[in-house]
């Protein structure tokens, strides 16, 4: 399995964890598992606010969507939240088809997503 640090880059933006992906496609089981583990590790922190940027990602599968659902559930249980950004139009369509665009707050740019957290709970 690829090491999580080879797949994701995590930065801290005033307490908000900004997760960027290093891969253009998240297709293999190993890649998705590594992403899930990295996000789940963040979810262990109570109240953790996480932004996942899909910048440069052009292909995902339903396994990624299901993983994000699990991560969001875990984050919500601990008082945190996951917000998404920089989603390619093709990939966004997958969120829309599955109605996950209603479950997740999705922003055009990652800085907008980070700012929404910093603006407060209703941001």
């Amino acid at each position: 399995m690829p090491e999580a640090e080879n797949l994701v880059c995590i930065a801290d933006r005033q307490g908000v964890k900004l997760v960027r992906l290093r891969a253009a496609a998240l297709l293999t089981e190993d890649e998705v598992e590594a992403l899930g583990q990295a996000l789940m590790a963040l979810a262990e922190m109570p109240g953790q606010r996480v932004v996942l940027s899909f910048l440069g990602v052009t292909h995902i599968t339903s396994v990624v969507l299901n993983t994000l659902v699990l991560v969001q559930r875990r984050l919500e249980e601990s008082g945190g939240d996951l917000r998404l950004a920089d989603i390619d139009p093709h990939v966004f369509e997958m969120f829309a088809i599955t109605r996950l665009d209603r479950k997740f707050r999705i922003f055009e740019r990652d800085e907008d997503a980070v700012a929404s957290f910093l603006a407060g709970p209703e941001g």
Partner: protein
Amino acid sequence: MPRKCSNTDKRGPWIRRVLPSELERIREAEGEVLGRLGELGYGEDDRFAVRLALEEALVNAMKHGNRMDASRRVRVAYRASAEQVEIHVADEGEGFDPAQVPDPTADENLSKPSGRGIMLMRCYMDEVTYVCEGREVHMVKYRRA
């Protein structure tokens, strides 16, 4: 699986591949099919759709059908023309009833981590049909004008 293999069929000849239930083998099947669609001039939207549906079908066949049993095979058959591409994916599992898969877009299922693969296949392909008690899926994508 299709039984006829005619090179004179305007839909093109059937091309068949047999894969072990190893997820890393999915790339080669996808690459071959997408390469053919590229040769035929299919656009990005069509290739995205076919790639996604084929990926979902192969993962389902290996994981849920064959349960990652390396001794069980996945059979892929495809034929592509300038107008359409047909893909059949068959596993050696116990089958399933796709009608029993819950609608992942229902409010009560939005937080469940399952059921989205089949739905995406149906949305991105023009025809999706399960045969052989769910052990085989047939998909058709018509090229966009």
